């Protein structure tokens, strides 16, 4: 099985937010929830870079570790998913997540924030693959259809890469070698305790 990861080549990101739009549309993400967002560092200054960030599907995921009801699980492809049937909306995963991935439908109504929602790597949830129930709760399950997450698939500059860890790391390495620079595989050291040596 592959180890699926995202890699955002910030030197290519043009901050077009197409990944954000694609994600919202493909998964019918409710208003107010952003599974993916683009953040610009040093905006307007020389050397600014934009990074598209969502759940990084960490190895030894912190969200799963702190969840008081153990609603998280990791698929054979290394994708971190959760069950909305088990989630109690306590918000702990958000405190533990290094990437701000968990989202809640409500901001705070006496602590009941509703079921957590986050990037599923377009892999749905525990329900039967591509069932209506799965789609309504978690969005699309493109992986089961043999497709990669839509955000990366439709990235116009191919800045956002999705796929098997070794393959996308190699693509990034080759790019850095060819063009002579790279701002790093954003989030990899934090998520996987290893980065792409360039």
């Amino acid at each position: 099985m592959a180890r699926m990861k995202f890699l955002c080549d910030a030197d290519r990101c043009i901050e077009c937010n197409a990944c954000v739009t694609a994600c919202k549309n493909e998964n019918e993400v409710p208003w107010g929830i952003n599974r993916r967002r683009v953040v610009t560092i040093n905006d307007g200054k020389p050397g600014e870079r934009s990074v598209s960030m969502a759940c990084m599907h960490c190895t030894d995921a912190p969200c799963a570790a702190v969840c008081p009801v153990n609603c998280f699980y990791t698929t054979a492809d290394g994708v971190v998913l959760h069950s909305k049937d088990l989630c109690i909306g306590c918000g702990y995963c958000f405190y533990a997540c290094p990437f701000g991935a968990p989202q809640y439908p409500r901001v705070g109504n006496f602590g009941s924030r509703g079921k957590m929602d986050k990037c599923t790597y377009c892999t749905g949830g525990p329900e039967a693959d591509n069932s209506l129930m799965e789609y309504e709760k978690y969005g699309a399950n493109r992986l089961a259809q043999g497709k990669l997450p839509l955000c990366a698939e439709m990235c116009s500059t191919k800045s956002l890469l999705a796929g098997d860890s070794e393959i996308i790391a190699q693509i990034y390495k080759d790019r850095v070698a060819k063009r002579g620079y790279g701002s790093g595989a954003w989030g990899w050291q934090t998520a996987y305790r290893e980065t792409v040596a360039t």
Partner: protein
Amino acid sequence: MAILSARIQLLVAAILFLVCAAVTPLAAQQPTSVNPTAEAVKEQQLLQQLNRIQGLGSIPDVKSYVIEQPQGREWRQFHEVWLHWIGAIAVLGMLAVLIVFYLTRGMVRIEAGRSGINIVRFNAFERFVHWMTATCFVILALSGLNITFGKDMLLPLIGPSAFSSWSLTAKYAHDYLSFPFALGVMLIFFMWLAGNIPNRVDIEWLKRGGGIVGKDHPPAYRFNAGQKAIFWIVVIGGAAVAVSGYVLMFPFYGTTIADMQLAQIVHGVVAVLFVAAMLGHIYIGTIGMEGAFEAMGQGTVDFNWAKEHHSLWPKLKEQNLRTGPGELRGKPSATPAE
């Protein structure tokens, strides 16, 4: 003719424009030797500087502008390792101490036996406040411990689905019962503050170990140093869990993710220590001491209990005046309980 010359003019203009357009970019192009990322931000560098990476986004959720905050791992370490140890040592340690103490010391008896005369110790309002706070506390404690220990202890027994339903109910109970609990703590503070200011008698009481070990009965006013300690634990601990709890309950109302983590740490640590302290309180108020429970149960205590444990309590003098000291002095030990 005029039309033709106009057309030629247009054509010349178009050709000129095209030539210009082709030439200008060449002139404006950067020299190839410039490294476009010479000043570019690098992930590694940013993380080393601040241990978090923040930028600017285009959605209203300001929290989402932080793209990396690895200190979540330290909070995870606290929540999954340290809090388990602190909680387990505090709660189980207290239980162990109480069991050992009960087995060696046993119940603290009313040495002189019961006098049969009851003195009002807590009026109906005081008892109502106590039991309201106490009931809330027990539910808050159980539902709170469930958040930390439930997945290791209860989840394997009842399964994920039942455990989630129970935890969701427990979470709602935890959220809503915090209000009467906080109210109770406030009332306790105002109600019993006067009797709980530490004074010189407390030092003597503490020096003699409260008479808990052995058969000593150091003097005390309405509340002895141990009870005063419980009072301040409830007031200060209660305020700490209430404030940190409301910060958690209203997430990101003027707080950052680091504040939320800190609030959870304070809430967790204070709460488990609070639970341990209350176990001691429950012990001494029930099986630990004869005649203690009725103070909060029916509101009255036996005259001899009061004389032994609270010899300086002004109510004793009132009672002496009402019944006459001589009568009482002769009576106590001879009269059986009730």
